[in-house]
């Protein structure tokens, strides 16, 4: 083994450990937590003390708003494990506004939101869940009488950074699926150029969210992202390239039907429409609900839930390729292609017969030859 690969003994400063103990978090739990977060962020273990120190900072003010959402991402957050939602809400951040959990309601809730925006201007982290409808003058989504368009713009512009949770906020998601009845847009489309990190997924994987928050706390900035604004640590690889069934794909072992022997034995779901080859997400490695499972592990193909426009591009979900636009539901690319080839062959066969029977179409040189 290369000596560089031997991890340094990791030590978290005693006073940090003591502080957490006073808050009722055991040393072991705290160490475990810091290690897990560091791993999720794909950081070397030497970063553990830095992560630990960041945890100890003044709690980060966070505003969590929901627009055209189904609250699935809020729920996903409540299922977080490393750290848990309770630990985050009580110890890591100061959650100034979050409709699903907050005690205040009505104008007291609104007041908490706008007061936090003013008080922590340029310093708070904004989390947006759900897309933002631009149609009907903003009336497709209002909170406290104010349109999502207006409130989102204000909140984004005054935030230190924005995290979009879920595919709706990141890319428009289901409300923006054709024919997009409400003119739904993503956060990035609404406020281009803002400091945003997209955490698509339907819903977002809670571990990716907590890791992003901790990254922000640790380094004071958002993690490195790809061209679609997704952090590389979570979306830097294709499902297909990390899939536990990949060996079966390469071996040519596929489930032909749900429930057949191959599917029961964990063979590749490619022929059942799996979109793992088109989807960038870390589902196979971190899975869901504390690593319990993920779609392919449970026998269902990936539907590409973290890809932009997946409701239109990844459907039909049980076919590998999208429908050819303008053709019926049963018209696969192959059926159309085969039809095209057959029609070509038939047409040329007919043409050939006609041409062979054809008289008097020869070239002038032919005539010349016969005359000779």
């Amino acid at each position, binding site marked *: 083994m290369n000596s560089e690969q031997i991890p340094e003994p990791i030590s978290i400063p005693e006073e940090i450990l003591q502080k957490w103990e006073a808050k009722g978090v055991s040393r072991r739990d705290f160490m475990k937590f810091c290690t897990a977060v560091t791993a999720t962020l794909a950081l070397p273990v030497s970063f553990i003390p830095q992560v630990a120190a960041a945890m100890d900072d003044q709690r980060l003010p966070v505003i969590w708003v929901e627009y055209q959402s189904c*609250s699935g991402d809020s729920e996903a957050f409540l299922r977080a494990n490393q750290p848990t939602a309770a630990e985050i809400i009580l110890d890591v951040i100061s959650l100034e506004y979050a409709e699903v959990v907050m005690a205040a309601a009505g104008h007291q809730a609104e007041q908490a939101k706008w007061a936090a925006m003013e008080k922590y201007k340029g310093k708070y982290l904004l989390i947006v869940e759900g897309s933002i409808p631009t149609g009907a003058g903003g009336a497709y989504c209002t909170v406290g009488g104010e349109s999502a368009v207006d409130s989102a713009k204000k909140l984004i512009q005054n935030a230190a950074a924005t995290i979009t949770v879920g595919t709706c906020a990141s890319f428009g998601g289901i409300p923006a699926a054709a024919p997009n009845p409400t003119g739904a847009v993503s956060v990035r489309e609404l406020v281009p150029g803002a400091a945003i990190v997209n955490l698509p997924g339907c819903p977002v994987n809670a571990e990716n969210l907590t890791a992003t928050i901790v990254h922000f706390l640790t380094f004071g900035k958002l993690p490195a992202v790809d061209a679609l604004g997704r952090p590389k640590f979570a979306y830097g690889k294709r499902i297909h390239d990390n899939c536990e069934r990949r060996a079966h794909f390469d071996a040519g072992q596929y489930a032909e039907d749900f429930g057949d022997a191959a599917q029961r034995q964990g063979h590749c779901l490619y022929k059942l429409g799996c979109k793992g080859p088109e989807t960038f997400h870390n589902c196979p490695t971190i899975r869901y609900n504390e690593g319990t499972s993920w779609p392919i592990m449970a026998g269902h193909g990936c539907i590409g839930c973290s890809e932009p426009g997946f409701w239109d591009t990844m459907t039909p979900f049980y076919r590998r390729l999208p429908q050819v636009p303008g053709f019926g539901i049963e018209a696969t690319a192959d059926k159309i292609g085969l039809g095209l080839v057959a029609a070509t062959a038939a047409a040329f066969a007919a043409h050939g017969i006609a041409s062979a029977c054809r008289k008097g179409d020869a070239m002038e040189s032919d005539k010349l030859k016969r005359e000779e």
Partner: protein
Amino acid sequence: MSKRIAVDPITRIEGHLRIEAQIEGGKITNAWSSSTAFRGIEAILKGRDPRDAHHFTQRFCGVCTTVHSMASIRAVEDALKIQIPDNARLIRNLIMGIQNVQDHVIHFYHLHALDWVDIVSALSADPAKTSQLAQSISDWPKSSTTYFKAVQGRIQAFVNTGRLGPFQNAYWGHSAYRLPAEANLMAVAHYLEALEWQKEVIKIHAILGSKNPHPQTFLVGGMAIPVDPDSQNALNADKIAYIGKLLKQARLFVEQVYIPDLLAVASFYKDWAAIGGGVGNYLSYGDFPMDNSGSVSSLYFPRGIIMGKDLANLMTVDESKITEYVTNSWYSYAGGDNKGLHPYDGETTPNYNGPKPPYEFLDTNGKYSWVKSPRYNDQPMEVGPLARILVAYVGGNPDVKGVVDFVLGKLGVGAGALFSTLGRTAARGVDALIMARKNEVWLQQLADNMGRGIYETFNKEKWDPATWPKEARGFGFHEAPRGALGHWIRIENQKIANYQAVVPSTWNAGPRDPKGQLGPYESALVGTPIADEQKPLEILRTIHSFDPCLACAVH
């Protein structure tokens, strides 16, 4: 003097709900329920593959996740006349069952409790007395003085930071809070425990369906999760055992924490058994098939209707009597807005004509909500655990009867107390308990099937659209946590020609109909006392007792 107030957003619910109320003499005299968000998923579904629909509909809601997948595949299976294998039925029952249990517990502790529990007052509780209280009502092991002291210390440390985060600006100290400090501390401890518990027990969804929220395992014709004791990639003995462990954990928490807490809290708020009754008509579709016949009689929770709080007269449900109105909703119907449409012919054409945002009040004389107004036989109906439990109670489900009688006896109230805000909250607990116990039975049956070599989870006969008729239509019913859920689908040329969902919260949160009949929320609010119109805690109590979900209601 009469005053109009608006509570927007209603928090600790799912989605965007706005309540406007007219208050006179310390009481609500009129109320309007509105949802202020619309996505249009019914319109988005048109023209798509019916087998894909459940993925879309599941995204109606991430809180009652799974329920719209269930209703959707049932609708398609009804349209195409597909029978599912026994294992698929059991797996579905388990997924729905644990969904109900987990959703109810989250509702009670995280969405509803703060209407009754004053967290701030928990700081002044005596941990020793709290321990005594806890031990007097339950055998739950986490009940020592040291334990409650630690919880109190944690809350104290949190409060000491001076930043209350999600607990700021609430109605703490409101005169309507009545629990002793010790009960409050116990509730806070259980608030935190429930937060931990819910993420554990819902791993059942992950085992059976990859993840929660939004499990990905449903199929038209069965389930994607394979069953095979000889495979490491299927439900095998190991996974069954894991589910069994989680189910036990779920049941113990309901039996030893949720139900005792519910009874303890309710005993301080018995006056709420006379508040918030509402329309008094109850609809339950019934659910949890006990065999694969598809018949109504196979349902563990029976299907039925109770009109005008008349428990002596249980009526059958006639699906054709369901209609939706948009007279007061921001939609238009091609044939005129005052006509009710049956869901097969339902339309979702947005037509916003309300005030331009930002606004202070809605114009409640016209259209004022994105929720439609469903009616049964032109009557508004309340749906939810209360309706489900009432119908099962009079419909002769012995398990339900036993638990309801036990709860009523403990509280020393008659069945009439159920028609109330408190009744709704209590019925939810009853529902959770029944489900928590029943789940273990279904798991055992699934294991028995596996033992007998029955592995089938999917019926592929009608999977290929080429096998479908040119035209078909069907509906799917489901008792979601929040009540009677129905999806209706029309299939033409292998595509969705029309798709309509009438959702529990649509029934409950809908606005007035053309006859001016109030929806269940509105009706339940009328007559509710309001001690302080700046802090309308009482509105939250009654509205939360329905467990609103507006993303569901509007979709």
